[in-house]
């Protein structure tokens, strides 16, 4: 298997990831890429609470994730790589040619953002950043749960 999903989701590990995607994918591991969480054992314990014991959780900085991608892509289990914002996955993508697809799973309301989909709010700069990643050949769709229609980036940016 491999990393089945490269997901941008500002809630990081939560029900949609562990249950909504985790059940149908028979998820074996989650890589959470976030520099702040990587440096906080307390935050890591908090995120582990939401994950069944049979699913491994790896906490990585952006730099560690760039180095670890080949190993995770070759893993016999199915994995999800999670980032909390576009910038993190863009930075990871800039250092790796492994990322072919990005799933926008949840970017919620904040000052300066406007609603693009029920679960996707973006500033104009963030929308442009997604289009730029798509122009580099990465397939980008928005899809909160597996049963929803994957919405192509052109439809929401």
């Amino acid at each position, binding site marked *: 298997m491999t990393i089945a999903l490269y997901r941008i989701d*500002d*809630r990081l*590990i*939560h*029900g949609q990831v*562990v249950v909504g995607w985790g059940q149908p994918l028979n998820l074996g591991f989650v890589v959470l890429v976030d520099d702040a969480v990587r440096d906080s054992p307390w935050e890591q314990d*908090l*995120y582990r*609470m*939401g*994950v069944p014991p049979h699913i491994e959780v790896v906490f990585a900085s952006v730099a560690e994730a760039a180095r670890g991608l080949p190993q995770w892509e070759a893993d016999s289990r199915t994995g999800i790589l999670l980032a909390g914002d576009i910038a993190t996955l863009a930075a990871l993508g800039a250092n790796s040619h492994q990322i072919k697809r990005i799933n926008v799973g*949840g*970017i*919620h*309301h*904040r000052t300066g953002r406007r609603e693009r989909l*029920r*679960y996707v709010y973006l500033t104009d700069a963030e929308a442009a950043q997604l289009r730029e990643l798509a122009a580099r050949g990465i397939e980008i769709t928005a899809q909160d749960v597996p049963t929803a229609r994957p919405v192509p980036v052109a439809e929401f940016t």
Partner: protein
Amino acid sequence: MSEPLRGVIVSHSAVAQALRVAVAAITGLDDALVPVSNDGCDSGALTTRLAEAIAGRPAVLFVDLPGGSCLTTSIRLARGKTDVAVVTGVNLAMLLDFVFHRDLSPAEAARRAAEAGGKAIRTPAA
């Protein structure tokens, strides 16, 4: 007499609101619980909603799942505070117990509610 505890139900979608309505229908007490949904929230927005619901009072946070954004946000907010306690796996039975024991400390009320909620989970013969 000190101010009674506030119960804050923290859930996905409309679970919290439905539980609050059910408790009011059963007990007639409609001011003991405050519902908070994580709909449309990142962790920052949910923290704001939760802080507004607690309003600086001693409180017990009743969270739906033992993981995920509702729990992580609740625990971050309760961290280091002795006047806020957290319980997961909220159900109607634990809330019904809580609304009649709001004079306890947050930790004791949380422990008691968790016990009442756990006792309500059974598999009776049909």
